[in-house]
């Protein structure tokens, strides 16, 4: 009983939210003046135009934060800490700039005292703030990861690991850092192809984490049969691509991106604690790799290169594409939800995007070319998708139906919304209707479930009649035969 009550409450809440979204004038319903267009891919990997999910809200440079700050040069990373402060790793100026969400400068870190010595950074590339307000800074060319407290004083540091098997000229060039709840540190190191370097709570190197499989072409293997030893020796080695971006989700799983030369395989991995890829991509027609179709030469050509990723509420992920400056958002099942931004000079576009973060519901992108941060805020369309996906992810498929229905009204071509309605009907037990919606949304997994249940219902309805009539007919036939036989006997007698 209490269950029903909460679900009713949730439903009322969802209705209220839907009404607020519909009536409210705060959010633009559908944006028509954005410099980019929204699109997604349908089940068959065909491009479908869609409303814009996020619109540019504002953009700001170093001068907007504080007039005395010099402009960002080659800024490499942006990080929103658990306490709401925004950190920008300003690589060219060798500093970390910390400010709050009202664009008030909080602190600039140029260096720290270690054993009484003033230490500066040398082209830092990444930063991470833990729950305990410890700053992990990827001080790339100093080959170390200093760990500072919130006041900026030195605690300890990660250095070049002393481990067997590492080359003598091994250079520890950290570029990206993530620290999980257990204190394990994951570091992406430049020119390390074995995987992400994993350090324990005390800063000891534990091993490599997650590996990218090299895709070998069969033609290469074929040619190897005809090669001499020297030829094989002189041939270039097949090494996997490097990891590009990392993000930690709520379950301490790590999302990573890596470059993929042909753009036909997933560029995103979801690594479980054992370092295995557990990313879901239910519709394999559309891979988690940004654009499915692209020009092969010319300007803005080539496959998407996802260089940064963030984990969002509701199991969603957003990934940043370096090739065309777009941000792709996927749900926990690997469906592309919406695409925002692009390459260009207008407000809301970027020239050289390098990093991506969430600021509440907003998305911020760091554009290294302009030394600028662009902030995007959801339209009603985007907010509805976020809400529906969140509700579905938390198991409230029935509550999500209001958002899905509104989405269908806004954009009839959005297959995921049809599938969402179908799934809510499946959860309600309305199998016949669910079949229609799931078919329309091309959700084959749930279509099959709904179909099986519906088939069972129909069978349960029909079979008793069939069996009754069948038994009756057989009975009649028996009676007929018996009477006939008896009559013949009587006639004979």
């Amino acid at each position: 009983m209490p269950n029903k009550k909460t679900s009713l409450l949730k439903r009322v809440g969802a209705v209220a939210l839907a009404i607020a979204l519909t009536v409210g004038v705060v959010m633009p319903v559908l944006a028509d003046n954005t410099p980019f267009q929204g699109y997604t891919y349908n089940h068959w990997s065909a491009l479908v135009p869609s409303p814009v999910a996020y619109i540019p809200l504002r953009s700001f440079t170093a001068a907007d934060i504080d007039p005395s700050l010099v402009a960002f040069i080659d800024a490499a990373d942006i990080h929103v800490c658990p306490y709401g402060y925004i950190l920008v790793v300003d690589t060219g100026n060798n500093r970390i700039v910390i400010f709050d969400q009202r664009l008030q400068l909080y602190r600039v870190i140029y260096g720290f005292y270690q054993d009484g010595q003033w230490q500066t950074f040398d082209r830092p590339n990444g930063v991470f703030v833990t729950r305990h307000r410890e700053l992990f800074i990827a001080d790339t060319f100093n080959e170390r990861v200093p760990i500072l407290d919130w006041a900026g004083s030195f605690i300890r540091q990660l250095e070049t690991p002393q481990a067997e098997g590492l080359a003598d000229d091994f250079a520890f060039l950290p570029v990206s850092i993530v620290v999980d709840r257990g204190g394990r540190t994951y570091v992406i190191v430049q020119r390390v192809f074995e995987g992400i370097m994993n350090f324990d709570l005390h800063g000891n190197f534990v091993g490599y984490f997650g590996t990218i499989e090299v895709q070998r072409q069969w033609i290469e293997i074929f040619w190897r049969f005809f090669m001499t030893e020297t030829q094989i020796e002189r041939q270039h080695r097949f090494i996997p691509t490097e990891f590009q971006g990392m993000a930690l989700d709520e379950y301490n799983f790590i999302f990573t991106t890596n470059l993929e030369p042909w753009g036909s395989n997933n560029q995103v991995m979801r690594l479980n604690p054992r370092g295995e890829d557990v990313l879901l991509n239910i519709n394999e027609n559309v891979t988690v790799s940004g654009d499915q179709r692209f020009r092969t030469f010319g300007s803005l050509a080539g496959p998407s290169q996802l260089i940064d990723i963030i984990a969002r509420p509701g199991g969603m992920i957003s990934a940043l594409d370096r090739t065309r400056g777009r941000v792709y958002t996927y749900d926990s099942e690997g469906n592309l939800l919406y695409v925002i931004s692009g390459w260009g000079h207008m407000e809301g576009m970027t020239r050289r995007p390098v990093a991506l973060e969430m600021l509440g519901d907003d998305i911020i992108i760091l554009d290294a070319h302009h030394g600028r941060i662009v902030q995007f805020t959801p339209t009603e369309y985007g907010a509805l998708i976020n809400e529906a996906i969140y509700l579905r992810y938390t198991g409230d498929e029935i509550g999500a139906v209001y958002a899905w229905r509104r989405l269908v009204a806004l954009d009839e071509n959005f297959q995921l919304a049809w599938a969402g309605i179908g799934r809510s009907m499946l959860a309600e037990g309305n199998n016949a209707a669910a079949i229609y919606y799931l078919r329309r949304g091309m959700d084959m997994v749930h279509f099959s479930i709904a179909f099986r249940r519906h088939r069972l219902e129909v069978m349960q309805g029909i079979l008793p009649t069939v069996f009754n009539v069948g038994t009756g007919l057989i009975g009649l036939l028996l009676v007929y035969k018996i009477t006939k036989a008896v009559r013949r006997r009587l006639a004979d007698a």
Partner: protein
Amino acid sequence: MIKRIFGFYALPMRIIARPFAGFYAMKFEEKGTVRLALFNFFLVLLSFAFSNQFASILVDERHPLTINSVSDAFFLIATLLLFCVANWSVTALTDGEGRFKDIVMAVCYAMTPLVLTIVPATILSNFLSAEETGLYFLLMGAGVFYFVLLVFVGLLTVHNYGAVKMVITLLLTIVSILVIVFLLTLTFTLFQQLYSFLYSVYTEIIFRI
């Protein structure tokens, strides 16, 4: 009654049951007719169209707009022609006894398993959930497998070949298919060039008059 209606289809059924005897009867006892063979092929085209139209979404996920039964039919006709011509061109040189007519008949009569499986499998697919679609593919696969087997037996009988020679001529048939396709492409490009040349001559003249 049944015999009277389906009597004309006796030979295809006999071929299914006893391939060697059936194909022997088709050629050497003059039981086979080209008309019935082509009708059999037409039934296959119809079955494919039926499958395109009515197969369950779980076994055929293609977008409806990408399905075209007419172009499918043309493709099948072209493939049949290409295979028969190629096979004829090879076997004529390697002491094959089959005439072109016999080759077409053998291939078309061999299609009976497809006629018998595609439609029932398509109907069945509408009662299957995703986990059970294996049944559909098993049925279809069995049909195709038996079709290939029958083509092999049919051509073997028609040409009066041994199995090894048959395999070799089939491989040569594939080579000759490639040659034919290559020559066709070449001819098409040539005609295209010729056309564009004549067209540019025409425009030159038009502009000067």
